[in-house]
């Protein structure tokens, strides 16, 4: 119990004094995870909707694979991305290993299946409602996907936030491909792992509370910006 109070106190002081290291790694966490979210959403939202709209031969298999990929262990993703980006790997010439870009790539791979799968679930229901209307209007596939994405934006927001939650809290993959380099690739989760390793539980826990607060803040901000969960508009 003492450690938890010490953690709360250390989180409080870190935030109140605007510790420069804390600000730096927090901004880096946000930058990496929001970039990953943006890229993953651009891929996963249309793809998930397309899966709901189109009928093709390997649809079931594709959905099964997608759902299985949701459980992809981040450490495995990290190791594969590491081997690909290593100087001795196929993309070694790009020199991306141990940079924030490598961390974004790993996180995109981790969260894209998650967002696509939730999108597909939500869009399937919506498609059942819209099916007759959109077919009778003789819409193209692309028009159908756009309509569904626009009208289902609340559900897609949930999908995106789930993806963001997984990205910002992820440590296994970015530890391997980012290397947890101070002032270069250290983010909140890898800093927590490092401080735990040093036995400094108070600081680790303090960073953990900052991480939770950050996730809350981003969720609220997205709700405010997209004007959901408001009176008359839920």
């Amino acid at each position, binding site marked *: 119990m003492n450690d938890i109070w010490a953690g709360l106190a250390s989180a409080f002081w870190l935030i109140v004094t605007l510790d420069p290291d804390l600000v730096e790694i927090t901004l880096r966490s946000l930058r990496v995870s929001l970039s990953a979210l943006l890229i993953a959403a651009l891929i996963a939202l249309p793809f998930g909707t397309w899966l709901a709209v189109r009928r093709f031969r390997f649809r079931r298999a594709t959905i099964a694979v997608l759902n299985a990929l949701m459980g992809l262990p981040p450490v495995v993703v990290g190791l594969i991305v590491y081997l690909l980006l290593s100087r001795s790997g196929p993309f070694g010439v790009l020199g991306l290993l141990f*940079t924030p870009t490598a961390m974004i790539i790993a996180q995109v791979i981790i969260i894209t299946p998650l967002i696509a799968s939730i999108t597909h679930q939500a869009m399937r229901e919506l498609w059942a409602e819209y099916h007759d209307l959109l077919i009778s209007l003789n819409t193209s596939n692309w028009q159908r996907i756009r309509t569904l994405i626009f009208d289902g934006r609340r559900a897609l927001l949930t999908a995106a936030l789930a993806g963001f939650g997984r990205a910002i809290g992820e440590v296994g993959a970015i530890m391997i491909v980012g*290397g947890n380099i101070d002032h270069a690739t250290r983010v909140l989760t890898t800093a927590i792992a490092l401080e735990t390793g040093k036995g400094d539980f108070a600081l680790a826990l303090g960073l953990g509370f900052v991480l939770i607060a950050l996730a809350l803040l981003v969720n609220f901000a997205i709700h405010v910006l997209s004007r959901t969960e408001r009176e008359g508009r839920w």
Partner: protein
Amino acid sequence: MIRALVLIFGLVTHAAQADTLRLAVTTSFHNSGLSDVLLPAIKADIDLDVQLLVVGTGQALRLGEAGDVDAILVHSKSAEEAFVAAGYGTHRREIMYNDFVILGPDTDPAKIEDQSTAEGSLRAIAAVQAIFISRGDNSGTHKKERALWQNAGLDPATHGDWYKEVGAGMGASLNTASGLNGYILSDRASWLNFGNPGQLAILFAGDPELFNQYAYIPVDAARHPHINADAAARLEAWLTSPAAQTLIDGYMIAGQTLFTFNASPTSP
């Protein structure tokens, strides 16, 4: 949207421009806190940003083999010599040493405080089958521990449940030892910097067998042309300079000197 993407990629790739050097170091070196003293001095003296990758010796050597780092600073002599002999590194330069200690519960059920050698201590622990935590991650510390068991005439593979390989870094292993109240081999620096000691205490130290030599190996630029060999050479010159000697010999935790500088002033 495309503009936003370009902007984001511009931001994320920007950081890699300054003159930087990637150095793979062991967890035990980093946990000692010495790097926090040396890195700012390196930045001030030779204007070089050293990016530390803190990994076990096993992974550090792999990073060097793949050319993902410019140099390595590790402590496992036989593995280092094999690394250089295989042509991955140009040469091996000894920098400094610290020492290992055997920690255990302060009640000392195996009575290793009465022992005069490291091997004797391990035999005593095995005799009473007290809990022993092993790094189990092929790191320098783990290799040292296995060498000590071998010298003691015991094979860890035949140990019973009391011998626990956790497969983790020094800090995480110390956390486990503290939680289980078991014996563990640790470098002195990591132990003094460790914040969660529980009932553990230093029970055995001082056997010359437990000295721990750190060496610096630049990765061979002939094999990996993108290696920043110039920065690696500058860093080596600084690490073996009197400025580094003052900082390394003067670094203390709780009034104890941790590292002894022993680099020869001329390149081998």
